């Protein structure tokens, strides 16, 4: 979504502020910059702006591919804001949004805290660090669809997780994880945490390694214990990267689909149906493309609004 920013942003920050003060040299530099970025801007126009306009156009009609007409003729099915009214009054839509937000509110902080804890651990030295480091990063490399299938197998009622629980509890455990609404949601969230904690870990570790060693030592000499060092030296220095990591995961989790769809296809019923799964179903099963276009636009606006503070905050720091 971030690439949809206005093309002005491609000019160097200092140059766009005072055009009156530019001399010939600067103007030439600026013109060259424009020429060099022109292909990219044209490309962006095609892959971002064109589909956006198309979406907007379709969302204002009741056109579906079943009509057998090209989308260009959608104006013949003009419906005004009907799709948007439908969206506002559709309980299934709001439930899927609520579920997505719930997953976000639980998973992102858990991933953040786990990632931060691991990053703090890996910023120090311990035996077998390299080995554990590689192991830690593996979930991130697994294709989400494969991860979905993996957790699908793990959470079968006769699967390894129940086997382990049986061994631990001494009795036979056969929980139907993926068939019970709340457990299915929990299972899906566990899979997400498993797969995306490493990304948090990696981003935060990069941040931690950027904290100057001598400042930490100086803080220690001045009497700061681990907590004060973290609060006064480490945290302010990784705050930016922390917020970026949060923004990335918040946006990404809003789009959670593949792992989840393979594990539960949004079921049982609609109990794990997130907004992406909902959109997928409406698109592929109900073929209500104009309604989907309306949903997509609304989500784009919401996500942009969520990401804007983070982007705005770091734009000057480039």
């Amino acid at each position, binding site marked *: 979504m971030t690439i949809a920013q206005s093309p002005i942003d491609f000019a160097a920050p200092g140059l766009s502020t005072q055009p009156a003060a530019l001399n010939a040299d600067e103007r030439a530099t600026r013109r060259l910059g424009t020429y060099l970025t022109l292909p990219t801007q044209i490309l962006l126009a095609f892959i971002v702006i064109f589909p956006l306009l198309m979406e907007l156009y379709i969302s204002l009609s009741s056109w579906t591919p079943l009509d057998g007409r090209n989308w260009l003729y959608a104006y013949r099915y003009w419906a005004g804001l009907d799709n948007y009214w439908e969206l506002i009054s559709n309980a299934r839509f709001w439930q899927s949004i609520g579920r997505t937000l719930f997953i976000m509110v639980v998973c992102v902080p858990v991933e953040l805290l786990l990632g931060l804890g691991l990053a703090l651990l890996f910023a120090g030295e311990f035996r077998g660090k390299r080995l554990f480091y590689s192991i830690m990063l593996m979930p991130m490399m697994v294709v989400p669809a494969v991860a979905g299938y993996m957790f699908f197998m793990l959470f079968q009622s006769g699967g390894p997780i129940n086997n382990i629980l049986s061994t631990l509890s001494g009795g036979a455990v056969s929980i139907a994880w993926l068939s019970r609404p709340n457990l299915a949601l929990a299972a899906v969230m566990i899979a997400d945490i498993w797969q995306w904690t490493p990304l948090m870990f990696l981003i935060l570790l990069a941040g931690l390694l950027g904290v100057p060693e001598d*400042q930490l030592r100086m803080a220690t000499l001045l*009497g700061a*214990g681990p907590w004060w060092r973290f609060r*006064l030296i480490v945290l302010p220095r990784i705050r930016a990267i922390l917020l970026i990591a949060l923004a990335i995961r918040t946006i990404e989790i809003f789009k959670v689909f593949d792992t989840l769809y393979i594990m539960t296809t949004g079921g049982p019923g609609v109990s794990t149906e997130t907004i992406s799964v909902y959109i997928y179903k409406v698109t592929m099963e109900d073929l209500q493309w104009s309604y989907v276009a309306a949903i997509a636009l609304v989500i784009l606006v919401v996500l942009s609004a969520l990401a804007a503070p983070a982007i705005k905050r770091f734009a000057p720091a480039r």
Partner: protein
Amino acid sequence: MAAITLENLSKNFGAFAALKELNLEVRDREFVALLGPSGCGKTTTMNLISGLLHPSVGRILFDTRDVTPIPMDRRGVGFVFQNYAIFTHMTVRQNLAFGLRVRRLPPSEINRRVGAIAEMMQLTKLLDSRTDKLSVNILQRIAIGRSAIVEPAIFLLDEPLSNVDAAFRQVMRTELKTLQRQFKQTMVYVTHDQLEAMTMADRIAVLDQGILQQVGSPLEIYNHPRNVFVARFIGSPGMNLLNGRLSAENGQTFVDLGPAGRTDALPSGLARAAERAQSANVLVGVRPEDLECVDGATESGLTLVVSFVERIGHRTVVHLGAGAQSAKMTAHSTFVAALGSALRLRARAAGLRLFDRSSGLALTLE
């Protein structure tokens, strides 16, 4: 109140011995400079005192308390790093307040003490500015103030003046000394600049290759170097060391310097020390300023050939040679001598020192 005692301190990094069996006592409120070339172990010594490093062997005592096992955050040692390690994401005020804040002092007390230290370090006007754009001279003041604010009994400074400009360095030399008197602290100061060590320190500890060469007051070190390393290292240029052979004549002792000639008769003290020499082969030490030109007519004296003339402004350094021997002499800025011309010189008897050629140790009466 804090004296520092380093007992038999050694530090190895793998196979490399950075510090070998250092024994050093720093008295309460004393200003001791650790002086030596790069890699001599002076920074290692500081890191051991502060607790940044743990000694391989030996103990560190503050007064009579063994602090060797105490971690650095509880040793309470003030330390100014060579690069200052200013917290660049904080303002000057936050930097200064750091040590008090982590000690959970009440804000009013923190404010009062930050104000006082800022006054002393002349940082009052800058208190609320960001630290990432300040000059090195100011960063250095912040670094000192930040460590001083918690009033540590022991203050360590690791080459704090090596990054600042020459004019400011001169100001800071006197200022640091004044500060130390104000704070009533025991100060250990690392430097490779002998001028800093000579001007500020009560005593200087000269280190080389991890071994303590000599400890003493600046003049003691300058006038009575214990071995040839200290003799060469201290002074600019360092002490001349000429190969010679002891010879006696009419009850007087001389040193024969081969093609360069012969010294005057040694003063009685030095002559008695010379009697204790293991061998007649010695090194004669004489400071460049203790060489003087004499009238060509005198019989005794040295003859050396001018090989190079270095003009520094307020004085002239004359490079001299005779056979394999070489020496330097400092003269007045108006001194004139043609390259290749022979000079008749005399070494002032009071400035003569003798060293054993094989051990490199000074011959003294003990």
